[in-house]
């Protein structure tokens, strides 16, 4: 199953939001991939920090998260939550 999300964190999908995204992905069993929603790039492994940050996704851009497996719905819910939460200002 697939879900399209608009990136909310101001800085896009860079170190902090990306590490939260990857950590969350690692909590699930299913296969997880993420890519640009317009299909301009192939989806990449959602459990790889290098691949996720390498997408170069900026704030306001839309991504597609693809999940395949038993806990796919829960994984998509959790990942959507990460991508649509404003980064806490420290």
């Amino acid at each position, binding site marked *: 199953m697939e879900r399209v999300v608009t990136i909310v964190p101001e*800085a*896009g999908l*860079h*170190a*902090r939001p*990306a*590490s*939260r995204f*990857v*950590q969350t992905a690692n909590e699930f069993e299913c296969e997880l991939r993420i890519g640009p929603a317009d299909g301009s790039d192939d989806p990449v*492994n959602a*459990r*790889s*920090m*290098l*691949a996720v*940050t*390498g997408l*170069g996704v900026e704030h306001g851009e839309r991504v597609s998260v693809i999940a395949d497996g038993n806990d796919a719905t829960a994984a998509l819910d959790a990942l959507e939550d990460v991508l649509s939460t404003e980064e*806490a*200002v*420290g």
Partner: protein
Amino acid sequence: MTTLSGTGVTPLAGVGTVQWYDPQVELSGVDASESIDPETELATFEQARDTARDELETERERTADRIGDAEAEVFEAHLGFLDDPQITEGVEETVEAGSTAQEAVAETFGSHIEQFESMEGRFAERAADLRDLRDRLLRILTDSDRVDLSELPDGTVLLAKDLAPSDTARLDPDAVAGIATVGGGRTSHSAIFARSLAIPAVVDVGEELSDIEDGTEVLVDGDAGTVVVDPESTPATEAATVEIRTEQVTTADGRAIEVAANVGTTDELAPAVERGADGVGLFRTEFLFLDRETPPTETEQYETYRAALDAFPTGRVVVRTLDAGGDKPIPYLDLPDEENPFLGARGIRLSLDENADLFETQLRALLRAGADGAGDLAVMFPMVATVAELDQVLTRVESVSDDLTSENIAHTVPELGVMIETPSAVFCAREFAERVQFLSIGTNDLTQYVMAASRGSEAVTDLHDPLHPAVLRAIDRTVREGHQGGAWVGVCGEMAGEPELTPLLVGLGVDELSMSAVTIPAVKAAVTAADSDATLIESVLASETREAVRDRLHLG
């Protein structure tokens, strides 16, 4: 004495001994006759990765405790990269193809670093994270000795090409007197960590920094954005050790000049007394607001100001109210991200507006300390540009004083002053002087704003020089208008600490000079030799170029 310019990232200054830090790791060569066993190499890599993970987790905890959770997330990202499946696969494949664990780490990280370097903006920062992580793994794999950043001797000034966030987070703020780097920017993680740890820091100094050798004495002034090499050896003093004078000095023609210290933390009070400071001409208060999650309480501030006043029982202590914004962000104030912070909300503009509560607390603490401390308190306000702002400030002071009276709390309204940092302030100096007791010229900012030349910009270094006739005429005008309005006039910028410029400033009629404590003896000596040579000053002010100014002052 040589002064190098960079970008100040912490509004504090410190003096110490240089220790260079180079995280680069030399790979151990492999003897061609040795056979490489992939199994062994992979096991070695796994062990190194476990060690790196332990280190990163420790550093993450320590950073969260000392600086904050948000900053600790840098280590979270490093942990993410460390266990990345692409890294694991890359290293395994390279080892299988006959490389050592070291070579495999260098090669695998190298290809990803290149990929990120080719990207823009924040994503390029990931390249720095990966380099930092690669160097950590290689250090573990080669068992390299490197400078242990958490165990530096007291009074170290750390110099480096650039510092990784994990390097800065390991520093002990009590031991490190300052940091200066060849590259780097104000918004880098390292700069943010340095600010949070309240370590004086200047970044982006340029390649000239590399000429400074280990063991050299330097002054890192994060407020001025400068690194001063051998601050105590000036052309005037190289020949002889300068005598420390504890009494106030007068010029050859009998004018008493107050020679005071710029102080950034209470730790700098005792050294200032030892060097013969008559008092404090600039007590920066930003340090009180750094390295913490919440603003300092009134009591805490009162005790700090009290300590400063007690350190100079017969002198004057000029405290500058919080000068945030511009190049001095304070972590929890959540200041607006401005396109041009130097021309935005900074200094008194914030105190009268977003930070009115902080300002009120600071004024309460100051008025109370003024009544109880031994020395004479004076309070000055940064970045005042208009008479209306000053009138608002004076109203606030009055209302705080009224509150304290009605609460029956001992207090006194101290001498008040305005910092002259903008051309607007120069042109309003007369009106300011009629309202307050003194003016203090901040020559670093005044030069920046008169010449429209940023202190941190390499490209306009020549314009950022207080010896341009325009800046000297602004100082001259301020002194004359200040005196006519009934105020005394001081100088608390870098220029005040250069003994070869003492005759010029004294000649312009300045009453007080305030500087880093190290240069006080040399400046006091220069004051006693100076006399007000009206002809020289006239010819300097009539000069058309800074070169002509330098010639007339016999400066090389």
